[in-house]
């Protein structure tokens, strides 16, 4: 393919950004100095709340927030399947647990370092997910949902109770010295979330993500574009498995122990709700909603002195219906004006029809 001169106005941009054209930015692209100052302030405020505040509050807050970040990574993993690939997993706690257990095992029994465990957790998550991907090539829709559901339960009941995993008593997962404090561990989780967000973003903007997306919408068209559909379905499962394996690994070291009772169906359900209400294919929406959906009930039960985990699931079911009716793009769609504005665009809805139509394409 010959390198040609860029057509005027079409390829001047640094990277493909389907949102920029046609938004009516008005003043020839980019806000003025005052606009940038306000945006800078907003970014600084966000950075303060996310990075600095947990370091100022008592350690226990950082501990709690770490879990929220870990769950956000797991929800992003599910977003790869539900959002990008159009597949479903109701057994995501299984992959999460596979990562967690193997990572803990690598350190406690294998005597390896935390960093090796991080890689082994992500890889075993990927392998487990790849196996499910092979199943998904044969089974679709509701039946796949049932298979994944059964897989998650089976993993919890049998795999995680194997002798090598402590027969139900669980496996210890001591943190390395450098991440010993909850604050340090929180920052590390944030870093990992950043890495996952970056990889997911690059995925959607490159060959592999486009292939997965096309295969989701229309397999026949995808294959006549020269895309090996089965291969890219598997790739989506592998990527999802890497993310959730990583989340599981972080979870094991966050808790410093992993046991099968922590990995029940409730976790899978939480992740499905978090992904769909957060907004399929909307990274920022998924992260924002997952963290809030996890933290708000915790802080509420602190205040009111009650602890009712089922309440958050009931609220989740309600939110699910509300989202389906009013904002198919989820939280990602609702906060779209804010994310656009912070990215240098106008404070406007912009191209929303993408959410309403069959092809939901929330792209923060």
């Amino acid at each position: 393919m010959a390198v040609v001169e860029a057509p005027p106005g079409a390829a001047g941009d640094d990277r493909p950004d389907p949102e920029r054209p046609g938004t009516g930015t008005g003043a020839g692209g980019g806000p003025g100095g005052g606009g940038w100052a306000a945006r800078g302030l907003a970014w600084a405020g966000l950075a303060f709340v996310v990075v600095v505040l947990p370091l100022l509050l008592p350690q226990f807050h950082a501990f709690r927030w770490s879990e929220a970040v870990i769950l956000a990574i797991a929800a992003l993993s599910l977003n790869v399947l539900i959002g990008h690939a159009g597949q479903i997993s109701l057994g995501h706690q299984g992959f999460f647990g596979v990562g967690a257990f193997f990572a803990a095992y690598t350190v406690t029994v294998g005597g390896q370092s935390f960093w090796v465990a991080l890689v082994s957790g992500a890889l075993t998550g990927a392998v487990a997910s790849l196996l499910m991907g092979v199943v998904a090539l044969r089974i679709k829709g509701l039946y796949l949902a049932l298979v994944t559901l059964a897989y998650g339960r089976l993993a919890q009941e049998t795999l995680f109770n194997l002798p090598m995993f402590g027969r139900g008593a669980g496996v210890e997962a001591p943190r390395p010295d450098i991440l010993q404090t909850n604050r340090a561990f929180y920052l590390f989780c944030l870093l990992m979330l950043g890495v996952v967000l970056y990889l997911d973003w690059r995925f959607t903007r490159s060959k592999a993500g486009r292939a997965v997306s096309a295969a989701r919408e229309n397999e026949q068209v995808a294959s006549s574009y020269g895309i090996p559909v089965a291969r890219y379905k598997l790739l989506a499962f592998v990527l999802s498995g890497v993310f959730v394996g990583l989340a599981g690994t972080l979870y094991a070291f966050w808790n410093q122990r992993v046991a099968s009772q922590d990995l029940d169906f409730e976790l899978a359900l939480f992740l499905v709700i978090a992904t769909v209400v957060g907004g399929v294919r909307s990274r920022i929406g998924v992260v924002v909603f997952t963290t809030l959906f996890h933290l708000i009930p915790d802080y509420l039960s602190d205040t009111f002195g009650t602890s009712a985990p089922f309440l958050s699931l009931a609220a989740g079911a309600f939110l699910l219906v509300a989202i389906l009716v009013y904002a198919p793009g989820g939280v990602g769609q609702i906060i779209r004006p804010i994310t656009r504005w912070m990215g240098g665009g106008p404070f406007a809805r912009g191209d929303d029809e993408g959410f309403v139509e069959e092809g939901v394409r929330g792209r923060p």
Partner: protein
Amino acid sequence: MAVLDVDSVSIRFGGLQALSDVSVRVQEWEIVGLIGPNGAGKTTLFNCITGFYRPNEGRVRFLGRDVTDVPIHERAASGMGRTFQQVGLVKGATVIENLITAQHAKVAYDDLSGIVGTPAVWRHERELRDRAMQILELVDLADLADRRVAGLPYGTMKNVEMAAVLATDPEILMLDEPSSGMGPEEAHELGDTLLRLRRELGLTILMIEHHVPLVVRVCDHVYCLNFGQLLTEGPPEDVRNHPEVVTAYLGEEAEEGDALAPAPPTSAPAAEGGGGDAPAGPGRRRRRPLRAGEAG
């Protein structure tokens, strides 16, 4: 060497013989038409050629290579571009995203470096976008680049689909009813576009088409299918006037004087002699004696 050589292809679906012993050859630079009434097996033949169906008998050769057992995406990557009767596009994506996706097989980086995002990837992505834009300009769709496909009119979608197939860099362009949903003027413009594509890009084209003026104008050679069999082939004017083709399209009512072709000699008027009502079809003619017999 023929670009495409379909050699005695047959396919059955249960008890239905959808294609029997069909052979089609398309030479380089040719525009070949594939016509025939509904249900004749035209799209089935397309599906056999592109790999969506595996024929029970016969071989498909493309650019001299036997591709009968090659999967769809590999045939597409080796230069078989096709459109679909029901517009084949990723409808949730924008026009240009479709054209970038369609260049999949030409992307010079691997999946992993795409996900990690190496500098080479950024450069290639820009090239893909530029090339997509070039193709859109070639078919006068550049101003729709960032429009979502789902919101476009049907005829426009058809054009976008053709642009997307061009983005796969095909050797042969296989079009399934490209003029459907278009008025006569748009169909004429489509003819101009096809001739221009052949001239400028050196494309070979095989198309299923019902619009007779378009077929006659652009095609070098026409194949006519009926009930899964090759009825006839030849230059468009000959095929159009071939008595069996006329019968296949119009049934025996052709004698009622259609402008398409001179009426073939038939013995139909003799059979109609007894009845008084004019629009007697073959079915009704057969039934009437039966009723008469019952009455008597």
